[in-house]
Every structure is written in structure tokens, then in C-alpha cells.
């Protein structure tokens, strides 16, 4: 336990900072990230315009690709990892994501139901007459 504490003590690292400080490895990380991000971006633009795939699957595919690319950016550009030195950063990120999903998911969910349950606009106009 004490060993573990000793190892962790001076190793909390800042978001954006990396553990290794070898310049070559750091550049390689960015190159890999750029390659993956370009690949995912190209796939997104291709999927959006193609009729090769089942059409209703396109929105889902686009959202999955976007989330994957955000993950690539987080790991390779912002250096958010699952390492023990990154716990604080990951926890902050997790809380941020929770709020994001509550806001976006909640709005879409509630407003979708409101739209469904509302009278069509012309009937509302008639009721006011």
C-alpha cells in the first residue's frame, strides 16, 4: 500500500501532458492520431453521400463515427488515458459527459414527445377562432 502511495504521489499529470518525454514517440502519437482522425472523417463524408448502404443506418453510423473520432482526439491529442495518473482528468471528463448526455438526450426525448402529443398546428388555429 505504501509503495503504491509512493509511486502515485508525484505522478498526477496535467491533462494534455504525456508520461513519456521522448520527442520521437510524442510526434508519432500525433501522427497516428491524425491518420485515424482523417480516416474516420473520410468515412463519415463517404457514408453521408453514398447509397451503397442501407439508408436508415446512415444517421446511426454517422453518430458512431463522430463518437469514435472524439475518442481518437481525446486519446492522441489531449492524452486522456486510463492510467492511474489520469484519474482526476477522467473523472472530470466523465462528469462533463454525464451533463452533456442529460442535456442533449433529455431535450430530444422530451421535445420529441411534446411534438407527438401536440395537436397539428391548423387544429390549434381553429380552436382559437
Amino acid at each position, binding site marked *: 500500500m505504501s509503495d503504491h502511495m509512493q509511486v502515485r504521489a508525484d505522478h498526477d499529470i496535467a491533462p494534455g501532458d504525456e508520461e513519456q518525454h521522448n*520527442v520521437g514517440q510524442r510526434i508519432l502519437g500525433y501522427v497516428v492520431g491524425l491518420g485515424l482522425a482523417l480516416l474516420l472523417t473520410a468515412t463519415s463524408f463517404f457514408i453521408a453521400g453514398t447509397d451503397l448502404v442501407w439508408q436508415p443506418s446512415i444517421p446511426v453510423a454517422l453518430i458512431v463515427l463522430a463518437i469514435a473520432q472524439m475518442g481518437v482526439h481525446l486519446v492522441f491529442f489531449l492524452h486522456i488515458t486510463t492510467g492511474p495518473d489520469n484519474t482526476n482528468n477522467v473523472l472530470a471528463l466523465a462528469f462533463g459527459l454525464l451533463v452533456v448526455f442529460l442535456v442533449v438526450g433529455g431535450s430530444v426525448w422530451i421535445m420529441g414527445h411534446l411534438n407527438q402529443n401536440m395537436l397539428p398546428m391548423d387544429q390549434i388555429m381553429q380552436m382559437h377562432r
Partner: protein
Amino acid sequence: MSMTATAGRGHSDPHHIGLVIEHPGPAPKRTVTAYGFWVFLLSDIVMFSCFFAAHAVLADQTAGGPKGSEIFEQRNVAIETVCLLLSSFTCGMASIAADVRNRFWFYLGMTVTCVLGMIFLAIEFREFADLVARGYGPSRSAFLTSFFSLVGCHGLHVSAGVLWLLTMMAQVFAKGFRADVLRRMMCFALFWHALDIVWVGVFSVVYLLGSGA
């Protein structure tokens, strides 16, 4: 006090019974600063998520005006996306150069980042001006209001980022790679990468999903 005492009689305590684990103390300033900025960035992303939510709800409320598929040009969006992605990469190169205190590569990386960011802004500004000239300004429909506010908010962030970038170049020029300048540089890199993440959401949800529907 007790720590030094413990360390002092280490040789008379072979089993380390009196060993006090040295408390690490506060984290280095670099970590604290970057963590605070990381929390700010997450709150910024939460703010963007509100604009995204508004856009998702209002995307179909075109009030007889144009739909997304009628006004979006995918070629422009692709160029903007590549610009921002490459600028994220060059920003990473500049921050590595700053860490190893190499002025030439730092200025080169920052200049390329700045140029790519300005190309992005120019394309976006032209798109907005074109839409307004055709009568499709933000007051035309709820869809256009949400579109202009979401994309415009991201554009404002990029503009602020470009100003910050120039400030960082000036600071390195005037003050060199001091510790405080390096901390600001790290925060700038975080900011720029986060903007790219937001843009991934924008081009996927607003432009690609919007032109499909």
C-alpha cells in the same frame, strides 16, 4: 518536523516502524493550472451541448424556409474539417517544440496553425455572408437561428483561439520559454484540441446528418 526526525534516526530503526510516509504536498502548478483549465473546457463543452440540443430539437422547424440539404455545401465543410484537423496536429507539434524549447519549430507550428485557423474562419464567414445575402439569415426560421448560433458560437471560439495563438507567439518572442508562458501554451493547446472535438460534433450532426434528412 516529525518527518525530519524520522529520517534522521532511520539507521536506528531497521524495521521502519517509525517510518512516516512523506506527504506529497500540493501538486505542481503546471498540473493545477491545466486541471482548472480542463474543468473550464468541460463546462464550455456543456454549453455547446445546450446549443446542440437546441439544434436537434429545432432542425425540422424550417417555417417554410430552406432545409439543411438545400443550403449546405459538403465540399466547403470537408475543406473546413481538414483545415481544423491539420491545425490540431500542427498545434500539437508546436507544443512539443515549446516543451523542448525549440523556437524555430514552435514559430513554424504556430504559424501554420494560425493560417489553417484563418482559412477555416474565412470559409465559414463566406458561407454565413452568402446565406444572409440570399435571405436565409438567422431570423428566417428556428432552424436557421439554431444553426447560426451553434456554428457561429464555434466560430467565435476559433476567432478567440487565433487571437490567443498570436498572443502566445508574442509572449514567447518577448519572454522566451518561461514556466508561466509554457503553462499558458499548454492551456492554449488544450483549448484548440477541444475546439476540434466540438467541430467533429458540428460537422457530423449539423452538416452531414442535416443534409441527409
